[in-house]
């Protein structure tokens, strides 16, 4: 029960700190800007053939989702980076863990609360973008539920690493740790893409290898790959279109990654002095 009490408070904290309201306002602005751009491109442009129109819709929506995914990752880091490290620094953790609960309740509770919050935000934002695209152009990406679920998964991967970092790093160091890690796999992802385009297998493998460090970018690429109409995959070369896509095994790996990293966070937090 303590896990859910901590999760509940972590969730409510976002509202108390007016983070939720801020995300809501900024999210609406983001979707509104996307809608305006999407509408203008569709109403003002002339498409000679049917395929072009579909291609434009696909690229525009993927661009929007790509931005949402990136913002989601940033949000996952910012919201979680001090959730344990900050409590340790301020001493609040001493009041918390001397209650009748176990330390893993605190780690898991904070993770659950943030995971729920981030999942809701990501689902709302990405579903809004898809809805806008559908209303304006009647374009619906393939494998929509799976795509959104994967974007949420990408966020949870980053969240979990940030929770682990918070158990042994201070807030600032943890922020640097998670963003640097994200930057590393971000570059790895691009190496993989460009190498795949150039037909360089060795460089592609290096990119794939890096994504095991933190599979969030790989998961995003799987989401974007699944959402494209199959014939476009062969046609397109643009930043938001995926050439080298991770297999379903990467999804299984990601789920295992979350379990293992969270377990590690529990162990580190359990062993340390507070």
């Amino acid at each position: 029960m303590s896990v859910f009490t901590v999760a509940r408070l972590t969730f409510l904290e976002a509202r108390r700190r007016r983070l939720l309201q801020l995300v809501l306002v900024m999210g609406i602005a983001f979707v509104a800007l996307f809608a305006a751009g999407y509408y203008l491109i569709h109403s003002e442009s002339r498409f000679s053939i049917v395929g072009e129109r579909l291609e434009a819709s696909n690229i525009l929506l993927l661009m929007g989702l790509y931005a949402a995914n990136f913002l989601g990752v940033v949000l996952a880091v910012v919201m979680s980076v001090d959730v344990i490290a900050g409590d340790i620094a301020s001493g609040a953790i001493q009041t918390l863990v001397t209650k009748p609960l176990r330390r893993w309740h605190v780690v898991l509770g904070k993770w659950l609360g943030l995971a729920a919050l981030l999942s809701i935000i990501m689902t709302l934002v990405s579903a809004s973008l898809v809805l806008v695209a559908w209303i304006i152009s009647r374009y619906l990406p393939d494998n929509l539920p799976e795509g959104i679920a994967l974007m949420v998964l990408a966020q949870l991967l980053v969240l979990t690493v940030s929770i682990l970092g918070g158990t042994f790093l201070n807030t600032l160091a943890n922020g640097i740790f998670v963003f640097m890690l994200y930057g590393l796999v971000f570059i790895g992802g691009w190496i993989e893409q460009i190498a795949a385009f150039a037909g360089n297998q060795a460089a592609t493998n290096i990119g794939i290898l890096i994504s095991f460090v933190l599979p969030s970018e790989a998961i995003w690429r799987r989401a974007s790959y699944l959402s494209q109409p199959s014939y476009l995959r062969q046609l397109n070369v643009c930043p938001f279109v995926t050439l080298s896509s991770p297999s379903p095994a990467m999804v299984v790996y990601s789920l295992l990654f979350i379990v293992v990293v969270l377990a590690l966070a529990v162990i580190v937090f359990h062993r340390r002095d507070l």
Partner: protein
Amino acid sequence: MPVIETENLRKVYRDVVAVDSLTLSVEQGEVFGFLGPNGAGKTTTVKMLLGLVHATSGSASLLGGKPGEPQAMAQVGFLPEHFHYHPWLTAKDFLDFHGRLYGIPDAERRQRIPVLLERVGLGGREGSRLSEFSKGMTQRIGLAQALLSRPAVVFLDEPTSGLDPLGRRQVRDLIRELRRDGVTVFLNSHLLSEVESTCDRVAIMRRGRVAGLGTIEELTGMQLEVDVRASGVTDNLRAGLAAFGRIVAEDRDRLTVQIADDSVLPAMAALLVNGGAHLYALTPRRLSLEDLFVRLVEGDSG
């Protein structure tokens, strides 16, 4: 059975020995004062007793269980040193959340939180955010939190820091109320007057070790001192005085002699007068806790 028990408890941080072989036990219903200068290992000891800090070696038990075990912690209240909690919470939400963690039912929390706020002098401040609270008020809300579960044991780490004289008196009264209710109180403090007026027994820490342990009477009563003010005290007379006890201080016509009990006073007076000294005063006095403290930890402050 003791409520708190430690045996050779030791904590080493890298190369600093914070607590060095601590053995003590606290009985149920006792108000136990834990004294010592800054850095003597008081807070580290409390943290080990609560499972916040893992001991390097030795053992500790709290309410018959290992420190930090949920069964024991359900009956424990703790006010940490420099208490601080999320400033965006209101007083009521803060207590409500911690009440939930204690597993206190909804109805009881609703009824109990205003009563507790009243008890610590924050009546009517349910809706205030912790960020609006002064240092003293923050300390009070922390105290309310420590009393939420009607605990059997309360750990207070410097409870009166940041409180004004009125607040200090309220905390003193609160500790007395807790004792009356049979609650065991473990009080970390370096405010000696506060300890002297509330504690049944005290331990004085020095460099991670117990330098003195017992009731205040035991600790100070063993140390009866006589201030002698007399002129013309010859070396012979001084040697005679030393036979009654130890001369601990000497300054021109003032002497301080430590004696076992006050039955020797008439004999001391007779010795001086018959020996030709002019005796102005012979004043027995019990050592105050402060005298004892200073004597035990002298040269260790900082």
